[in-house]
């Protein structure tokens, strides 16, 4: 995708207000905000693909797309209304820059695997609770076994999985053959270092971005 910087990180609160009408923003409801900003501001390049698998609560996603000039800022008005291109779950047919229509959990990673099998560099964002869905593990197992190194899964972990992940999510990915690490999901330097393409990699990568517990 072509990325043109128009607005900065500090402009995001105003964009979010325009989107939702809320003046105050609860950081915990914007768990993905910093990951998305770092991806679009520092990581994704021409021809790269980003799939938002965790499609609920997409305000942060739309705000980042608007800040980057991918979604027109005016499109933020009327979020979720009948003729809006931006709904409570993103639709790639309606919304500019959205590469995957999500909402039902557990779909993005499998599509990301298919995309990455063609050699495309793919980043897919899932939530820790989303990983409750078994379909994710079909994708995680297969990607690990075939060493799908062009795939990066970002797990935004706000500890919202009903029954938790005893022993940690990273260990599960590692057991399946992934390179995995946990970073501070609000720290832009840590996120950038973990998410940057790794041409030397031989395994798919999992980056668990830990944020405040929900």
């Amino acid at each position, binding site marked *: 995708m072509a990325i043109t910087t128009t607005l900065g990180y500090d402009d995001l609160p105003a964009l979010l207000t325009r989107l939702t009408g809320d003046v105050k923003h609860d950081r915990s409801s914007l768990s993905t905000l910093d990951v998305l900003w770092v991806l679009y501001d520092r990581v994704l390049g021409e021809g790269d693909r980003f799939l938002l698998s965790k499609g609920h609560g997409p305000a942060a996603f739309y705000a980042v797309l608007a800040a980057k000039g991918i979604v027109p800022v005016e499109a933020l008005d009327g979020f979720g209304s009948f003729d809006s291109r931006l709904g409570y779950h993103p639709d790639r047919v309606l919304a500019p820059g959205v590469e995957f229509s999500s909402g039902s959990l557990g779909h993005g990673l*499998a*599509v990301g695997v*298919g*995309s990455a*099998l063609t050699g495309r560099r793919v980043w897919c964002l899932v939530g820790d609770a989303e990983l409750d869905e078994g379909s994710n593990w*079909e994708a995680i*197992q297969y990607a690990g076994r075939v060493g799908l190194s062009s795939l990066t899964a970002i797990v935004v972990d706000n500890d919202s999985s009903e029954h938790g992940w005893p022993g940690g999510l990273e260990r599960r990915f590692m057991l399946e053959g992934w390179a995995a690490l946990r970073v501070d999901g609000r720290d832009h330097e840590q996120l950038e270092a973990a998410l940057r393409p790794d041409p030397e990699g031989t395994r798919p990568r999992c980056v668990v971005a830990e944020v405040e517990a929900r």
Partner: protein
Amino acid sequence: MSAMRERFYEIAREALDEDERVAVVTAQIGTESIGEHPRHFDVGIREQLMIGVAAGLALEGRRPVAHSYTPFLVERPWEFLKLDLGHNDLGAVLVSTGASYDAARSGRTHQAPEDVALVAALPGWTIHVPGHPDELEASFRRSLAGDDRVYIRLSEEENHARVDAGGFTVLRRGAPGAALALAVGPTLTPLLEAAVDRDVTLAYLSTVRPFPHDAVREALGEGSAVVLVEPYLSGTSASEMSAALVDRPHRLLALGVPNAEFRHYGTGREHRAAHGLDAAGIARSLQRFLG
């Protein structure tokens, strides 16, 4: 192995070699028959992943073919057909084997007479029910060249001969006002036998979606009785037939596999007879309906 299935594998291998767009995704059914190829991905017994991977390949401009046994290709990952392909507006060619009861001996878990109704419930799918390996070949080759969503249903049952024109074909015209008897896919041979002495217009359909509303109206002409014979869940295309004939007073007999938990093993032939879809069964139904 059924003749249709063998033909499918043959064309899939050829397409992988000749067309760089084509990619095949399997889940341990047909894997060895298709063989190793850089664009043949066997994902193990992971059918949700199979459909997701097909969607991802389509996102990158490939023409994915996904293949498995009918219940595992359509029923188990149905929401993935709906969302990864349909809602994301991505195309794929899904090719099932097993039909309604080819695996009669394997029991209910391997029988899927619901498949066509399930795919037809989703918008925008083309559905082919070939009655002969040559018809399969024609529809599969046409599908590979496109970028839409296509479901092709293979079966062990097949007709004695192929019907050349794809889609809807009138094979025999009855007298003005005669009933229309329409066979879908492999039900043609038993229907022909059952209706051999009857004055009916006999027609054949191998592409059931989109449904040929205008051609059906034309074929019925001044008639008012319609018999629809489908090799899967009875009534799957009854609503399409009603829509085609919305302004015509008509009677419709929709034959197919009953919507029932059918707890028998045995052979496909026995299942066909039990469901009244062999020539004798169809003849009995015609007698009751047409007199």
